[in-house]
């Protein structure tokens, strides 16, 4: 943990901006922005460790869920097709509500009238789910929270929330977060 903390301290100043070259986030070109976000969704998986028992078998699918309205318009399907997380094939699921039994490894929450973002987060709190929210939708943040910095897609990381969900986020990924909330609340500057 200390090495992770060290890395974080060293790299935080630079991690304030994370970007993908030539991805402008102007309203006119939001499609490209969401294509990047769609890619990020499954790429996070490489830097996150799920607790034991999250996968029934080695070949069990990796469930990537979108709760509420889908802002990606099929780009996730494009991004994940043929991709694996380890040996687990990625399966995309669309859900109306987040439930405790949803069994999602990564859950993008867009929020709806049926279930707000906060309610959805509350629903899966404590389960091994990497929750992802988007600042373009609202300020309520899950573990990963997409933000736009200098016209580039970046993210904040709530590592305390990840710890509550028994997830371990690689320090490499933490180093890239714009803002990182550490596991113990109060330590965050």
């Amino acid at each position: 943990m200390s090495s992770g903390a060290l890395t974080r301290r060293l790299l935080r100043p630079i991690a304030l901006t994370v970007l993908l070259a030539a991805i402008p986030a102007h309203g006119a070109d939001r499609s490209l922005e969401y294509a990047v976000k769609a890619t990020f969704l499954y790429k996070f998986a490489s830097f996150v460790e799920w607790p034991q028992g999250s996968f029934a078998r080695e070949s069990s699918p990796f469930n990537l869920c979108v709760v509420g309205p889908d802002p990606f318009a099929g780009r996730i399907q494009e991004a994940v097709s043929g991709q694996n997380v380890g040996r687990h094939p990625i399966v995309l699921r669309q859900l109306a509500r987040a439930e405790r039994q949803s069994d999602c490894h990564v859950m993008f929450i867009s929020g709806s009238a049926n279930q707000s973002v906060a309610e959805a987060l509350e629903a899966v709190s404590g389960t091994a789910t990497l929750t992802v929210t988007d600042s373009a939708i609202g300020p309520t943040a899950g573990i990963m929270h997409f933000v736009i910095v200098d016209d580039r897609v970046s993210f904040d990381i709530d590592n305390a929330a990840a710890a509550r969900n028994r997830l371990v986020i690689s320090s490499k990924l933490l180093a890239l977060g714009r803002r990182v909330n550490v596991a113990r609340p109060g330590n965050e500057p």
Partner: protein
Amino acid sequence: MTIAARARGPRRFKPAYALTAAIALLAAGIAISAYQDRIFRAQQVREVTVQGEILAASVTAALVFGDAKTVQEHVSALQINPEIEAAGVYGDKKAIVASFVRPGQEPLPRTAPDRSIAVRGRRSMILVPVTQDRAPLGTVYIRTIDEPLSRRLTRHAAVMLLAVMAAVLMAFMGTSQRTLREANRQLEARALALAETNSLLQNEMEERSKAEDALRQSQKMEAVGHLSGGIAHDFNNLLAIIQGNLHLLKTLGGDDPSAMRTYVDGAGEAVDRAGHLVRRLLAFSRRQPLSPRSVDLGELATGMKDLIVQSVGGRVRIEWELNATGKTLCDVNQMENVILNLAINARDAMPDGGTLTIETKDCFVPVGDLGGEVTPGEYIGLYVRDTGTGMTDDVRKRAVDPFFTTKPHGQGTGLGLSMAFGFIRQSDGYLNIETTPGKGTTIAILLRRHCAAESREAV
């Protein structure tokens, strides 16, 4: 000869060996340096490779999420290592993401190179793949600096310095060996010269010894001549007696048988005496080894009475005190010579006449007597005493030295006492000189008493 032969043996050290050894040392030094250089470079490559691997591991997330700025930060961190000249990270499309190059150095290739590309100079190129979950994400590229000559030399300075020092030492040893050999050669020459001188000296000594022998012999002959000169007169007298008797026989004794016998007896007696004299002379001059016999010194002296009386002449009175009862073991002829010589010496010491005493007696030397020089036991003593001039202390000390004489030139050989001394010592006896200047001299001779004398004599 042997010294020289040994010095030219096969184990001699030649300067050429030193030169060869020095060159070998230098070559070894260069080889060691080259080997060290290889090891150094291999280690350098290993170290830089490890740094490349660390970089590759650090930039995976940044590469995945396209964070070029973070990648650049990681790459720039490598500038701390002065061994690295340039470094960069290429993405999965082989496009360069981040890099740094030290000022003045060749820029990085635009696209990710493969291992077949050669680098100039003594640089090394290190390529490390960047992977995440075994999926290739890109490549880390690191190029080491071309180490300046001065730095390389500094690295090898210690070894080269050692090699050069060793070489110089070898060369120095070679030269000093040469000097040493030169010195050795001179020593050999000197030893040879010395040996030559030595052999010359030995030859000379042999020559001298021969000359001395010849001289001694001639001295002896001279003594014989001297003696016979003294005796010739007697011999003439004897001849005169014979001639006289024969003349009387011829002219007067023809008719008178008793007168005739008287003349013939007179002649015969003279002939006997002459024969006796001749035998003495022969015995004196004969060269013969010692043949010791059991001898009664008294009898011997008695037998020499005529000879001694003839030798010492009329001005010297002779007293005989022959009291010895035992016998001794010695060469008779030599003993006679000794007695005769001593008598003649005594006569010469008394030019104005005096008394010569010849004495024999039995002696017993107890332990510690005569200064402990004489082995204790029973002896027969022979004393020849004169009332002559005596000797000074100086003369007495040298009296038994060969060729030492106080007599005028042509009269003394200087061998008489010397020969007597030598003979007595040879016969296991002692000769002592007691003398007082102006009063006279006594020569005392001690010879061991011979106990088995009678039985030997009987044979």
